[in-house]
C-alpha cells in the first residue's frame, strides 16, 4: 500500500478525482437548485390554508 501513495498513478487518479469533484458538486447543486426552485414555485401558487400540523 505505501508504495502506491503519491505514485505517478496516484497523482493521475488525484487529478481525475478533482474533475469528479467539480462534476459531482456541480451536479448536486444543479439538482438541488432545480428542486428548490420548483418547490418555491409550488409554494407560491399553492397558497391555501396553513397546514394543520403547524397550527
Amino acid at each position: 500500500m505505501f508504495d502506491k501513495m503519491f505514485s505517478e498513478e496516484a497523482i493521475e487518479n488525484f487529478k481525475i478525482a478533482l474533475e469528479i469533484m467539480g462534476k459531482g458538486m456541480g451536479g448536486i447543486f444543479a439538482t438541488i437548485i432545480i428542486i428548490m426552485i420548483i418547490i418555491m414555485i409550488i409554494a407560491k401558487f399553492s397558497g391555501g390554508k396553513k397546514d394543520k400540523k403547524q397550527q
Partner: protein
Amino acid sequence: MEFLIEGITSVTWQQVVMYVIGALLMWLGIKKEYEPSLLIPMGFGAILVNFPSTSVLNQVIEGLGEEGTVAAGIIEWLFEIGIEASEAMPILLFIGIGAMIDFGPLLSNPKMFLFGAGAQFGIFFAIALAALLGFDLKDAAAIGIIGAADGPTSILVSQVLQSTYIGAIAVAAYSYMALVPIIQPAVIKVCTTKKERRIHMEYNPAAVTKRTRILFPIIVTFVVGLIAPQSVSLVGFLMFGNLIRECGVLGTMSDTAQNNLANLVTLLLGITIACSMQAEQFVTVETLLIMGIGLIAFIFDTFAGVMLAKILNLFTKKKINPMVGAAGISAFPMSSRVVQKMAQKEEPGNIILMHAAGANVAGQIASAVAGGLVINIVLSYL
C-alpha cells in the same frame, strides 16, 4: 479429542483482533448508545464470521461428493441476496427512513436546500485524498462516500463499485455518524467566531400545504430520475417512503414502514454487513487509512457547510447562523440537535432547530443524489 481444540488452534491473530473490534462495536452500542441498532448487530456479526470454519459463511464440506459440497452459510447467503444481488437491504431501509422524515421545516424554508448540497463536499475531498494515498478510483470513490454520512448510501455505492473495502466503509460510516456530537462541535468552533455562533434566526414558517407535501416526493423523484438516474433507487425509495407518510391515506402502512420495516431491515443489514468484516479483509493497513479518510470526509462536510453559510452571509441582509450549514450533513436528526445544543450553549434561548432540521433533511436528499452521481461519474472514467 483433537477435533475439540481444532477451532482454538486455528484462530489467527487477525481473527482475535476482529473479536476485539466486534466487542468494541457492541460496547459502543450498548454502553455509549452510539447507533445501537447497527453497531450491535455489526459487532456480533463480526465475531460470528471470524470463527475458523464458521458455518455462517459458505464452507466446503470435504468427504461429501467428489470435490466436497458447499454448505451455504446464512450470513453469506444474506449478503449475496440482500446486498450483492441488488443492494436490496439498504434500498428497502430507505423506505422506512423516508416515512420517518418530516420535510416540513425544509419546505417552509427552501433556502436550506443549499446547505444540504454544500455539506456533501467532504465526499469529494475524501475521494481525492484516497486517490492520492494510492487507492484506485473505484475504491477511492467508495471510501469517499463515507462522507455522505449515510449508511445505506455508503453500502450501496461501495457494492455497485465492487469495492473490496465494503466492511471498513460500513463500519466507518456508521461509527462516525454516531460520533457526530463529538466531531461537528470541534470543527464548528474552529471555523466560526462566538459572535457568528450567536446569530439569531427568525423562524416564520411559510404555509406548507398538504398538496405541497404530497407533490414534493413526486417532484424530487422526477428531477433526480432525469438528471441523476443512478440515484433513483435510493432517492426514489426515500421519496416513496415519504409519500406513504404524507398522502394521508396509508396510516398503517406508514407506521409499518417507520417501525417494523425499518427495524427488520436494520437488524438484518447490520448482521449481514459483517460478511465483509472477515479478518483477512478487515485487519489491514487499508482499513486504518479508510477510517482516517472517513473522519476527514466528515470534517470537511461540516467545514464546507459552515463556509457556505458564511459566504451567503456576505450577500444577505438576514444573517444565517453558520452552524446551520453544518447541519446539512445527512446524519439526521443528530446533526440538527447538535447544532441547536451548541446555539443554546452560546446563548440561552437561541432557537435555530427548525432551520437546522431543514438543512439536515436536505442533506438526506443531497447525500442520496451524491451517491448516484458518484457512481455515474466514476464509472465513466473506468
